Every structure is written in structure tokens, then in C-alpha cells.
């Protein structure tokens, strides 16, 4: 069966939703979304430590989207299709969950998969070593990313990344990522 974006979206809206957005991921949107979650009562009542962790990981997830999304399929009826991405922050029991979704070209699947599988396979100590190594290399991608996003998310949350690739058509794949903060 073909991938149904609405269905995916509805599934991710489980729990107490603090913020959900689908549309163009722009610098202004990121500022605005962060402002919105800072006002959330759920988060205001959290310990400083958790609150900052959620803000930090939330920004990293959004900036990952900002730097890496590909064009959505042309036949999909989207209000904002430029730099299209989805982000949902919700409180799910004792966890905060950040779900992101975006379209990527089929050719990128293996790079993303290898990266996440690698990060997920490392121990805390190995994650720190790799983080320090990449931080010291001083390299930035053309889009201004530092290659540390996924590592940082796993390091800060202490949880593995959960991801799934849904085939939309022969060239477009929907990349779904769930991050849990406890």
C-alpha cells in the first residue's frame, strides 16, 4: 500500500501534543516553534535539566530538517511545499517524544541508514569519542551542518534513534524519525 502522510501524521499525534507543525522549515519557523514550546506549561513545570534538554534536542531536530530535507513529491497536495518537513513534540507518558518526517531522495537512504545504525550501535563512551573527533575536524557541509546532529541527539537523550523509511514512489522516500527524551 502507498504511504499515506495523513495517516502517519495522525499516528504521531498520540500523547499530549505540545507542538505540531507541517510545512516549510525556515529559520523564522524554528525561532517561532521554539518560542511556542517555551511557553508550554508541560515544559515549564519540568526540572531545568529536562526542559533545556528538550529545547536543545528539539532545535537540533528542526535544524537537521532545515539542512537536509529534499523536495516532496509534486503530486502531494501540500500548502507549503518548499523545504517541507513535519515536527511533532508530545509528552507520551514519562517521555517526551519528538517525531520528525520529511521526504528524501531514494539515493540518500543508505547514507542516512548507515549513519543512524552506526550511532545506535555505539556505547556512551564511543559516542563521546566520535563527537570530539568530528567536532575537532573543523569541517562544515555546504549547507552549514557540522555532521554532529544525530550523535548529539543520542548523546543528550541516552536513547537509540527509531526510524523508518516509507516508500512513496520510485524516487521519493518518506523518512520518519522518533527521538525519546526521558
Amino acid at each position: 500500500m502507498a504511504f499515506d502522510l495523513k495517516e502517519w501524521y495522525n499516528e504521531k499525534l498520540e500523547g499530549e501534543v505540545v507542538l505540531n507543525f507541517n510545512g516549510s522549515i525556515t529559520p523564522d519557523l524554528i525561532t517561532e516553534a521554539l518560542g511556542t514550546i517555551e511557553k508550554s506549561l508541560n515544559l515549564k513545570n519540568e526540572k531545568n535539566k529536562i526542559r533545556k534538554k528538550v529545547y536543545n534536542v528539539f532545535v537540533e531536530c528542526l535544524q537537521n530538517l532545515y539542512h537536509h530535507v529534499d523536495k516532496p513529491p509534486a503530486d502531494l497536495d501540500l500548502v507549503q511545499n518548499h523545504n517541507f518537513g513535519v515536527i511533532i513534540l508530545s509528552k507520551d507518558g514519562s517521555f517526551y517524544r519528538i517525531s520528525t518526517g520529511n521526504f528524501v531522495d531514494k539515493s540518500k537512504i543508505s547514507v542516512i541508514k548507515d549513519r543512524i545504525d552506526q550511532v545506535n550501535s555505539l556505547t556512551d563512551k564511543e559516542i563521546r569519542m566520535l563527537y570530539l573527533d568530528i567536532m575537532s575536524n573543523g569541517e562544515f557541509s555546504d549547507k552549514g551542518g557540522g555532521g554532529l546532529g544525530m550523535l548529539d541527539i543520542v548523546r543528550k537523550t541516552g536513547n537509540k534513534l527509531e526510524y523508518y523509511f516509507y516508500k512513496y514512489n520510485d524516487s521519493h522516500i518518506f523518512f520518519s524519525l522518533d527521538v525519546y527524551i526521558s
Partner: protein
Amino acid sequence: METIVREGTPKTPYVRFDGEKGVIEIKGRSIPENSIEFYKPLIDWLEEYDGAGKDETAVNVQLEYFNTSSSKCILDIFKKLELLFKKGHKVEVNWYYEEDDEDMFEAGEDYQSIINIPFKMIEMEE
């Protein structure tokens, strides 16, 4: 040398690079999409700064949180300061973190493990 002062914004920290007083301050949050654009002028400033006429240079870093691309730029700042220190100038970094903020504490430890300059970890009460 010209003093650089920048007020904080929702995505960039308050910054004061004061050559007269030998004080460098970075406070707030640092989460710009384009970190290089923000930090390049500061790194260029440090390139020219030689601590002339000062006994020491105090570096106060009090960040709420920062994104990964800022983490690389902050390292570049420390690398410039390390060069200054290696030339015999006294440099001290004061790294502030809130008492239960283990992420910011660990970030300080990360820099300390890469950079060879005196690093003081200062815990702040919430």
C-alpha cells in the same frame, strides 16, 4: 582594538570581546542555522588580538545551550585562545553551568579535553 558588543537574540548569545580590558564574554544561547556567519567576525577579532598590555585575558562562557554547529565554532575560539596561551600570555576560561545541567558540564569537559588552557568549571545555583 575595537570592542565587539552584540546583544543576545533568541538564537544568538550576548557577546563582548573587549581588548581594552582583556575580557571575553559569551552568554545566553547559541543556536543559529548559520553559525559560521555569526562566529567568523569573532574568530577574526581573536586573530588580531594579542593581549597586548594586559596581564591576563579572562574568558567567561555562560551558555544556556548551544547547537552542534556552534560547538565547532566555539572550539575555534578556544583554539585561538590556546595559541595566545602558548605564546606565554595568561588566559583563563571560566565555564559556567547550572548545578543540575550535566549536558553543559560535559560540554565544558569536552573542550577541556581538547584545549590546553586553564579551564575553571563554575557551578551556578538555579
